[in-house]
């Protein structure tokens, strides 16, 4: 696919920044959920 630099740059900024933040947001939600489902206990440390 032929693409001019302007289109490429804008696509990378929008999709790249958006994709990175969206992925990390989903990860943060999953990890928050896992924290609630599997709470910390001192027993486990032992």
């Amino acid at each position: 696919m032929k693409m001019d630099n302007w289109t490429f740059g804008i696509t990378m900024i929008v999709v790249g920044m958006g994709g990175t933040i969206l992925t990390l947001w989903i990860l943060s939600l999953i990890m928050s959920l896992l924290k609630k489902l599997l709470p910390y206990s001192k027993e486990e440390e032992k």
Partner: protein
Amino acid sequence: MSEAIVNGLYGLVAGFLNMHWSNPIMIVVGLVLLYLGIKKDIEPVLLVPIGFGCILVNIPLAGLMEKDGFLRIIYEAGIITELFPLLIFVGIGAMTDFGPLLENPKIFLLGAAGQFGIFLTLALALALGFTKLQAVSIGIIGACDGPTAIYVTSQYAPELLGAVSVAAYCYMSLVPIIQPPIMRALTTKEEKMINMGTVKKSVSKTTKLLFPLVVTILGGLIAPKGLPLLGTIMLGNFMKECGAVSRLTKASENEIANIVTLLLGISIGATMDGKVFLTSQTLIILILGFIAICLDTACGVLFGKLLKVVTGGKVNPLIGAAGISAYPMSARVVQKEGQKYDKKNFLLMHAMGANTGGQVGSVMAAAVMLSILKGMGII
């Protein structure tokens, strides 16, 4: 007989006679890198082999980077194949404790904001006339993550590898100088003094164990082109957290990481041949790399301000500056800045969380970027 003597003498001075004007300059550059590594303690484990490699490759007629030259063999075995940065990642994963990040998962978002400089610098590089793949490789300096920068550049713009790697590692170690003025300029005194309290231990061992698996599977599905990066760092972390393979974990963070760092450094130095390296392009790349790190810091702090508003003032925006991959320097910078305004404010563990978020964020940003390129049919 006299001709044989002259020829013999010529053999002894041929090295001097074949010196290109750029070679002595690059030998000095190599010496400066050695000085920075040894005397100034700037990433010595990398700058020493890079500096020495730079000196070696700028001595004419030795042919170290020609076919069958020993530097060429190392370069082709580990850089062209992308093996060295990936092996380094296993070690980084084995050394990193994602605990502080998992204590407060919303800090992950700071790790994303700290990567915005990558994409903004990419656009800037395009505007300055670099090709698309060169712009991607220059932008990745903003990941503040040497192995990621090497991985991407060696694949898509190998001609820029020397400049990009040197910029990535030098700026990474200059974080304590680059970040504070930006942090000070973008935050008010009240914001700097926000006390986030102490980090309570609230993450179970099982959650820590599941984290690398979740990142690998989810990240891999979203950005498959970046799976080698994600997979290796998470493999290292999984080995550390599972505790069942301590020999492998120790080998990854010590022997393997050390050997690969040596080979990686010397092969990067080997790409710094004066005839290729001393161009205006290199200077522009160094400037763009600096801009990338400044933009990362600014975006991180500004996103920290947004989080402060969203959380009702519970987040100190300074920790946003730690959302880059320079671990743990960036977190220490935040702690130091915070304590300038309130001696009893301990931001270190919160900043460590943002910093490890930045490590995952930088790899994820690179993975996302590669997958977009693949999606657009550019790679």
